[in-house]
């Protein structure tokens, strides 16, 4: 599935990022293929807000549609 399909509270593993340039930028930020992330918020038709460790990221909807993820267990507690 794609990152854009995730819901708030989901946990996922990043599987594949299509663009090479975005891949390099994401690695510098801390996200690489295999990274585990949790979804803090999904803005309606807008960016997906991710958390990984102490870092938080905003990823545009269009980009999130190009990132393949594997959804893991949903977080038990919702914010």
């Amino acid at each position: 599935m794609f990152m854009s399909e995730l819901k708030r509270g989901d946990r996922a593993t990043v599987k594949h990022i299509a663009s090479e340039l975005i891949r390099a930028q994401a690695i510098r930020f801390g996200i690489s293929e295999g990274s585990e992330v949790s979804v803090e918020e999904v803005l309606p038709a807008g960016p997906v807000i991710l958390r990984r460790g102490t870092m938080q990221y905003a990823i545009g909807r269009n980009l999130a549609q190009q990132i393949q993820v594997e959804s893991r267990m949903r977080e038990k507690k919702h914010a």
Partner: protein
Amino acid sequence: MPKHDHHTHVDTTGLKRMVLVGNPNAGKSVFFNALTGMYVDVSNFPGTTVEITQAKIGGRLYIDTPGVYGISAFNDEERVTRDVALNAEVIINVVNAAHLERDLFLTLQCLEMGIPMVVAVNMIDEAEHLGLKIDLDLLSHLLGVPVVGTVAVEKQGFKELEIALQQPKVGLIGAYVADDLNRLLDRLGTKGEALLYLEDDADVAKRHGLKPPGSREKIYLARRERVNDIVHHVVKENNTKAKFATVLGRLMLKPLTGIPMLLATLFGMYYVIGFFIAQTVVGVTEEVIMLERYEPFMRNLVGGFIAEGTVLNTLLVGEFGVLTMTITYVFGLLLPLVVGFYLLLAILEDSGYLPRIAALLDRALTGIGLNGRAVIPMILGFGCVTMATITTRLLGTSRERLIAIALLVITIPCSAQLGVIVGLIAPLGWQHVASYMVAVFATFVIIGVVLNKVLPGKSSDLLIDLPPIRLPRVENVLKKTMNKSYMFIAEAAPLFAIGAFIIGVLEVTGALVALQNVFAPLTVGWLKLPKEAATAFIMGIVRRDFGAAGLADMSLTAAQTVVAMVTITLFVPCIAAVLVMFKERNWKEASILWISAFAIAFLVGGIVAQVVI
């Protein structure tokens, strides 16, 4: 206040080159200030508009570089940082203690360049506040270089830093590149060159007559893994429960709460600048101090040497006098507005709110071919369009930069101009404020949508990190405000003086009246304004705020004021912004933009005139 000198350069021969490298928001500029004291030299890096700050202290030359996430030649900032870092004798890497996961990527990249370095883990107090404990000794051990914890705003840790700077070390280079670097050392000269070649840096490969080997991603992934491993061992998180700041950060992002919060923030800024500063404060600084005290004093003083009615007297202290109007506008009118704006902007920047606004508005901005990041130059544009035009470089593609620059130079009024406009329009009542806002906003949207349709290519997507929400530090905010206001005035005052002089010459030669008559069909016929309005527009060519201020002195009806303000808002940007525009784009695009601004201003202004007058 630092001394910014664009002309003289420090003699740098025989000095030890200490280069500061760090991520954006690592507190590098405050760090540089704390390290070097007051006297710094700011100059443009050759061939770019990227500013490099240098300071000579003792036998050392400290060089600051732009904040970057890595040295990957993704933009001008990264290329400049690369070129400066490659020539460093010592690298001082400033990292944000709360962001080690992100910042250590650059640390390892510098370290693998084989240059002796020292790492300063800055804002260590804030990390502790967030519940993060960092084992600095272990970090130093894992990196193989001295590590010092600092709080730059309080100069904490700078004694230890000085000791470390006397013994910088070449760090432990990861096994993933160590062999390749040694192998290439003979061929490429230094490990820095070798590393960047291995990372597919096109410029570095080219100057050694090589093709990029295509190994960047492999190195990046291995380096990322090493960073994660280091962070895992070094950082202890002892408090994970949701704090107030975290909750607030989340509320800022959700549209349901985020949009009201954004509107409240913007209204608050508008209130402070438009009412408190533009009316109460300026009422004292411009009216009482400048017009009632300073100007009569100056006229008397100059009148004592140069007879009133002479050309020189008129040029110096007449209606558009260099010593009267320029000084009154710059210090009485603009300075309070600019200080107010930069103060609020510094609070916004330091609180971590800006990137959240970017995420919140991302969706809306994709409609005009931009992404959420464009919020930053747009908001900065309300401070100073010139500076904002430079920051459009952070946008991903040339297409986005062009759209953003077009919107900035045509539709966004800078703080000085906005202050004058708000001061004039706010007292007229909400209907007039609304007509003004609708006209300017509609122009903004139309230009954005049209450019997005017409320009070839594709815009980039949002990919940003969101720093923790925090209470800005007073010292930091004040320092930033002072620096920026000083730079603004240093740049605006000479332009104003030149503008005042030109207008003065036009006046004494009678050319002003002639020009007013030439433009009368446009100003009187189409815009339905008095013909003297032409003077304000001529002033506006120098700076729009100068033009707006000129309009402030005329007696206009409420509807005429709205027309005049819409026209001057959309009018050509100030000379400084034009120069930057020519530098950032090419002369062809810049000229088209300049002429478009002219045409759009009169077109929209005229349409408004037909509707409201």
